């Protein structure tokens, strides 16, 4: 009898008639992953965050995830299924889930949704993001000090603001220490395509680059660099084990603190769509200063370079160093920021230019 009743409840809940979760039971937290959590890149970083979250709350919560969810209509169904499974908080961990998350969040006003790196939100849908570009500046500093050919290769996935910010921050760092170095960008049109990433890395090295940076997810670029005797930076996760001699350092996305704070708010009953004004970046957009972005140990470089890198990192962390502070010109010579001007978050999200030091033009 009880069984039938609970099934009925579930059926009703799925119709959106009743959607309140029974209290005292552990809070259920679901994650939607773009790829396999073993990718050692973007999704792996989220998986580590999920594990931190689970460890932090122990028996208080139950976490689960769905992997390899394409960024299309299927995502809507998967998110709904996670709601039907009784999840109270759902993190959707890729930009491409934005519309789907928004749609489902409207259907289930009592479930908390957290979308990673988008710009649309609702009363029960927040946005989380990391200031990834901060790490790129430090990468640029290290690249500028260690390059011998003054050619930097940069593998980028797609021309979206997040990636452009990264390229420009890298160039700012690069040019702060080396006025002659330039960046060549190759768009691989994929977040995760090890073969193409490796091919692109080989081409960049053949074209003269001796330092490589990437805004794609697999360690393929670093492994190629390792083989060819070039150097590079890890992305999203520590890729040291794939390229012990080539990785200078990695910018690691540390999602744990964000997940913990969001779930804590749900438990405390004071969840909201975040602090501060509703700007582009999302409700929560933190970086090195809050340990949302962590740089691994500086390796395979001289001590003085490591010291300068550490200084840049700490400067960004304590706010004394502003990456996008004038004077700043785009790579066609137009003045973007006058001396003393600072780019705000709105400016960051509407970047449609390369700054000085980047070769070529942004696609489209």
């Amino acid at each position: 009898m009880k069984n039938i009743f609970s099934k009925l409840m579930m059926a009703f809940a799925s119709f959106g008639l009743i959607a309140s979760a029974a209290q005292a039971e552990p809070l259920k937290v679901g994650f939607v992953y773009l790829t396999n959590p073993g990718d050692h890149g973007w999704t792996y970083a989220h998986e580590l965050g999920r594990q931190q979250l689970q460890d932090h709350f122990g028996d208080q919560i139950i976490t689960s995830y769905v992997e390899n969810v394409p960024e299309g209509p299927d995502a809507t169904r998967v998110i709904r299924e996670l709601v039907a499974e009784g999840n109270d908080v759902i993190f959707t961990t890729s930009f491409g889930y934005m519309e789907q998350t928004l749609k489902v969040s409207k259907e289930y006003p009592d479930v908390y949704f957290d979308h990673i790196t988008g710009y649309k939100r609702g009363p029960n849908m927040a946005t989380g993001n990391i200031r990834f570009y901060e790490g790129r500046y430090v990468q640029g500093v290290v690249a500028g000090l260690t390059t011998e050919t003054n050619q930097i290769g940069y593998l980028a996935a797609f021309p979206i603001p997040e990636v452009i910010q990264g390229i420009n921050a890298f160039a700012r760092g690069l040019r702060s220490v080396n006025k002659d170095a330039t960046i060549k960008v190759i768009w691989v049109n994929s977040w995760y395509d090890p073969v193409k990433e490796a091919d692109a890395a080989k081409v960049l090295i053949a074209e003269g680059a001796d330092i490589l940076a990437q805004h794609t997810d697999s360690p393929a670029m670093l492994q190629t660099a390792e083989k060819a005797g070039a150097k590079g930076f890890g992305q999203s996760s520590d890729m040291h084990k794939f390229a012990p001699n080539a990785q200078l350092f990695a910018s690691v996305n540390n999602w744990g603190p964000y997940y913990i704070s969001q779930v804590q708010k749900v438990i405390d009953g004071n969840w909201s769509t975040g602090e501060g004004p509703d700007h582009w970046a999302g409700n929560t957009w933190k970086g090195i200063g809050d340990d949302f972005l962590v740089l691994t140990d500086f390796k395979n470089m001289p001590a003085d370079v490591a010291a300068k890198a550490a200084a840049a990192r700490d400067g960004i962390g304590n706010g004394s160093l502003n990456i996008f502070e004038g004077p700043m010109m785009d790579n066609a010579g137009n003045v973007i920021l006058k001396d003393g001007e600072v780019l705000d978050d709105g400016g960051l999200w509407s970047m449609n230019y390369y700054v000085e030091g980047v070769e070529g033009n942004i696609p489209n």
Partner: protein
Amino acid sequence: MIILQPRKHVSLRLTIAVPVLSVLVTLALGGVIFALLGYNPVQALYEFFIAPLARPDQIGNLFVKACPLIIIGTGLIFCYRANVWNIGAEGQLILGAMGAGWVALSFPEAESRFLILAMAVMAMVGGALWGLIPAILKIRFKTNEILVSLMLTYIAALLVDWVVRGPWRDPMAFGFPLTRTYPDAGLISRMPLPGIGYLGQLHWGVLVAFVVALAGWFYLSRMLGGFQIKLMGDAPRAGKFAGFHQGWVTIMVMMISGALAGLAGMIEVSANIGMLQPHISFGYGFTAIIVAFLARLNPMAAIAAGLVVALAELGGDAAQISMNIPKVVTGIFKGILLFMLLAGETLTRYQIIWIGRSQASTTTAKTKG
């Protein structure tokens, strides 16, 4: 030695039993694979094929998932009956979605329901044109339509990627690869069922799928054009004697299947996404090939076949959420199912006979092409 001997006549019972048996054997083999992987096979099969139907709203979602498969599958049946091997429905779907998107984005203020009709027409035109390319190349240059239609699929995927990141990008999307949302008149709404109300995400497009399948069945089995397609596929020489033109049949079936794939793309976007984005289809064009075969090239049966295959797709998600079974298992099921169907096809038409070696030497050869 094994000999295949044609049956004198193929019984109706066998015709129906083969697909059913194929599904059952596939399930059994799937169970074996699950067991080998260390999962409880009974539980895994339950999660895969029963659990996704446990709630009424999920049944609605099953129809939603089957909708593009039924529409594309019906189109592919036209091709395969004519012995034209279109395997690029995925690309035709994308071009259809782009055609519809172009209309919707050109009239952002439109309120008339004609908008959706115009979108459907443009979707079919887009898909048909994309299907026309391999057809014309095949007729004019004798190029292989399998390879051309497939290459065009890769090109279509990159083309839609380019328009949503470039010319059609929503200026308010901060550089993110999305177009503007279609106007409401360009969206397909959910369909209430009499006495039940809304069932999951069940939308009006599903009704279109049923109509398409029925119309396809009627055309192929009751009209001269359908007879022509079948004749050119089974016996092209006889077809030529009857005065039919091979080239026209190729063009016709490629355009029909392209148009239907395009229509499916438009429905998929208008019902589920409401805008263009880099990824709009996830292999529907390829999965529909299995639907066509499971339906034994009968459009009416494509409805049931589409539902069965859609169930395997939904099951992939369900089994992953509940048992952490990797989603690719769905692909294995689909592959095995197609193998079994093809074997079943042979068993329907031929008797398998074992003969001794001495007899074997007296056999004669025959070509089946």
